[in-house]
């Protein structure tokens, strides 16, 4: 409790609901001055929502926030920044055509008179901020688009520093960095710690957290599960706290009988990405593809499914070449795609569950073009029950469901279609742990029924947990699918950032 006495930031009993979904259901978090605090949790555990509450983007429904011992109720992001709470988002928020100096001063440009900008002060401020990070070498006058991703991230951090942060939130700062860049980022974080800044470090790479953080707090399903000192922490205990069950329970695994080849992809290339992808997918197996953001993993699926144009290469389904692929043709061959983006592509949020699930198969319930709505509801209900979609009825608007149930409904569309080949892009993104377990169980079950499942994911433990074979995509190149036993977290990550290739030379 001594930590609380000198705590810079204290959050108690924070609740936040979005419609039917409880995004936060009782979060306690306390961070001391000069502490690097890891905020750990699965996707959908509520980390981002919590930080948005902290940064004044969302207003919490219940709970108290204290900053340096006094009440803190941010009226909005600008107010939060004024109080010294600064966020660095996962996606870079830089204006690509502006220079580093201009980006760093953006919104708070030093003025001369009549609204004119004091250009030399702006450059001085930028230089100072970058110097504090030990990044004097970054040119401040060229458009940031010409800088490397790591350098851009430093510019972003420098901008945060000019706001004199008391609490700095870093959301997955290493997700697009190479190991060398991660090391220099950590050096910067240590320097900030010495300067007394509180850093909240969000990541699901536990090893990283162990390396840089002093204490940790684990969130699960929107609530604080456990908190403690990182040095004394047991990683497997943290994982168990994150998922709320043991790993064996989360990733069920029955014997899969690998059958005939259902899909053959040969040297597939899209307009830009992928550069080259070749693999085969068998009946009765779960194959996985890992790749970082921008590696071309999603583009590969879109090329196969006919949503993106193919530059060269071929796709064969059950021995037949697809030729000019289209979603319609793929569905006709029993190949279905689950989109990574439920909101903008996967679902029609304003329509009912039944309409969403049955959309590819309306003809099944129609005679002379007219639907039998009751039969359609029955058909969809049956699939919905099998997948455990929690809803009042299938006529309910799909937008009212929680993320996990929405995702189950999106999967229900493929099951309802009786797809033999399922391409799943990030099947558990933004989904609570309970639904995650259900989705993993479903994938396992589908494979043991003899269906072919390809899972594309940016979350390594999930791929190691459910896949029979795994391939890694790096800069548009898909390495061969190899049995899961030949992989671990480190070798997958190394392959994803192309280090394996370098080492081989």
């Amino acid at each position, binding site marked *: 409790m001594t930590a609380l006495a000198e705590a810079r930031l204290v959050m108690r009993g924070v609740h936040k609901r979005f419609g039917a979904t409880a995004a936060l259901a009782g979060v306690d978090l306390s961070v001391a001055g000069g502490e690097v605090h890891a905020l750990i949790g699965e996707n959908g555990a509520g980390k981002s929502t919590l930080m948005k509450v902290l940064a004044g983007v969302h207003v919490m429904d219940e709970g108290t926030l204290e900053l340096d011992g006094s009440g803190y109720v941010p009226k909005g992001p600008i107010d939060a920044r004024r109080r010294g709470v600064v966020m660095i988002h996962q996606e870079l928020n830089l204006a690509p055509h502006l220079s580093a100096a201009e980006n760093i001063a953006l919104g708070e440009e030093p003025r001369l008179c009549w609204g004119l900008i004091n250009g030399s002060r702006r450059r001085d401020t930028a230089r100072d901020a970058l110097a504090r990070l030990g990044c004097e070498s970054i040119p401040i006058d060229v458009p940031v688009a010409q800088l490397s991703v790591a350098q851009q991230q430093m510019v972003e951090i420098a901008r945060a520093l000019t706001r004199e942060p008391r609490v700095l939130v870093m959301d997955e700062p290493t997700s697009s960095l190479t190991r060398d860049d991660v090391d220099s980022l950590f050096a910067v974080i240590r320097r900030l710690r010495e300067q007394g800044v509180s850093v909240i470090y969000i990541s699901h790479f536990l090893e990283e957290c162990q390396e840089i953080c002093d204490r940790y707090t684990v969130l699960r399903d929107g609530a604080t599960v456990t908190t403690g000192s990182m040095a004394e922490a047991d990683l497997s205990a943290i994982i168990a706290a994150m998922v709320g069950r043991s790993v064996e329970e989360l990733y069920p695994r029955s014997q899969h009988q690998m059958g005939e080849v259902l899909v053959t992809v040969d040297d597939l290339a899209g307009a830009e990405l992928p550069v080259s992808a070749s693999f085969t997918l068998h009946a009765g197996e779960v194959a996985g593809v890992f790749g970082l953001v921008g590696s071309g993993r999603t583009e590969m699926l879109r090329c196969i499914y006919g949503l993106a144009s193919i530059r060269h290469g071929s796709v064969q389904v059950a021995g037949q070449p697809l030729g000019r692929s*289209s*979603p319609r043709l793929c569905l*006709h061959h029993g190949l279905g795609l689950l989109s990574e983006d439920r909101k*903008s592509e*996967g679902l*029609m949020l304003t329509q009912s569950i039944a*309409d969403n699930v049955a*959309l590819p198969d309306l003809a099944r319930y129609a005679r002379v073009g007219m*639907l039998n709505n009751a039969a359609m509801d029955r058909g969809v209900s049956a699939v919905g029950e099998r997948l455990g979609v929690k809803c009042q009825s299938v006529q309910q608007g799909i937008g009212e469901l929680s993320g996990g149930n929405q995702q189950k409904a999106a999967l229900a569309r493929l099951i309802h279609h009786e797809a033999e080949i399922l391409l799943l892009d990030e099947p558990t993104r933004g989904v609570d742990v309970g639904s995650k377990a259900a989705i993993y169980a479903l994938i396992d079950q589908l494979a043991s029924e003899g269906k072919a499942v390809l899972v594309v994911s940016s979350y390594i433990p999930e791929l190691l947990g459910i896949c029979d074979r795994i391939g890694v995509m790096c800069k548009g190149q898909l390495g061969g699918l190899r049995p899961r036993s030949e992989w671990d977290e480190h070798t997958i990550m190394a392959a994803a950032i192309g280090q394996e290739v370098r080492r081989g030379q």
Partner: protein
Amino acid sequence: MDSKNSRAWLGKALGVLGPFAVLLALIVVLRIAVGESYFSAYNLRAVPLQATIVAISAIGMTMIIVAGGIDLSVGSVIALCGVSAALVLRSDPNASALAIVAALVTGVVAGLVNGAIIAYGRMAPFIVTLGMMGVARGLAKWAGDKQTVDYDSSAWLNELMRTTPDPRWMVVAPGVWLMVILTVLMILFMRHAVFARRLYAIGSNEATAQLCGIRVPSTKLLMYGLAGLFFGLSGALQTARLTQGDPTAAVGLELDVIAAVVIGGASLSGGAGSVLGAVVGALIMTVLRNGTQQLGWESYTQEIIIGLVIVIAVALDRLRQSGLLSWERLSRLVRSQ
């Protein structure tokens, strides 16, 4: 769960009944303001007749708006269709059926041209139909040689829109009955047809529709063509009502039609909308127009009122949908007072 369910049901019922309630309230208010003469036999026949052309066009427009599109060329296309019908009748006053067919074909062709450019040229419907608005109006004037197209008044087409119908037992003009029949058919169509379900899907999320194997471009093309059928019929009825083909008729009608659809609960961002709502929306606007006329108000007052009604109706609907106007919120407000 039960109270939540019934509240959801109530919300849905309000969405359907809302426009009806507004219409009834308007009629009651006008009856009181205007007096006995408001319910005169003539007026009871005139109001539905005045609403017919907007209502039939609004049925077609509902499909387009449900699918996330828009058609600004309705007024011009109606004039063009009306002129083609009149041209047929000028050469043969007995060819009323052919005149209607000519109007329908003209409407479908205009719709297919719009649809083809929108669906295959991947252009914004707003721009394409804005262009068609000018083109169709110009074509109508060219076809009519810059004048109204007169024809022999014996053509039975004119009977369709006579305020006092010829067999008296019909009560209202055949055109009004046509509107009623089309409304019923299209309510069923929008509820049950696979095609209609695809329109809702495209309007709600075009990416999802594509993902689910719907041929989005050809569906859109067909939809604009089908909607053109309704605009063509409106054109024929317009000519019947004026008893001549007028290339300058129906200027600005597209706004009335779009307003009717939106007052009826459709969302301009697509995915929502009902035929019944659109027809009621058309009636609301006609009742307002007719009522203010009966009260002897200046036409500028009418215009102001109708403008306000459109904005208020849509604002209320937005509030209802966003949940800002939900029972929960209202009761919370009341309690906090």
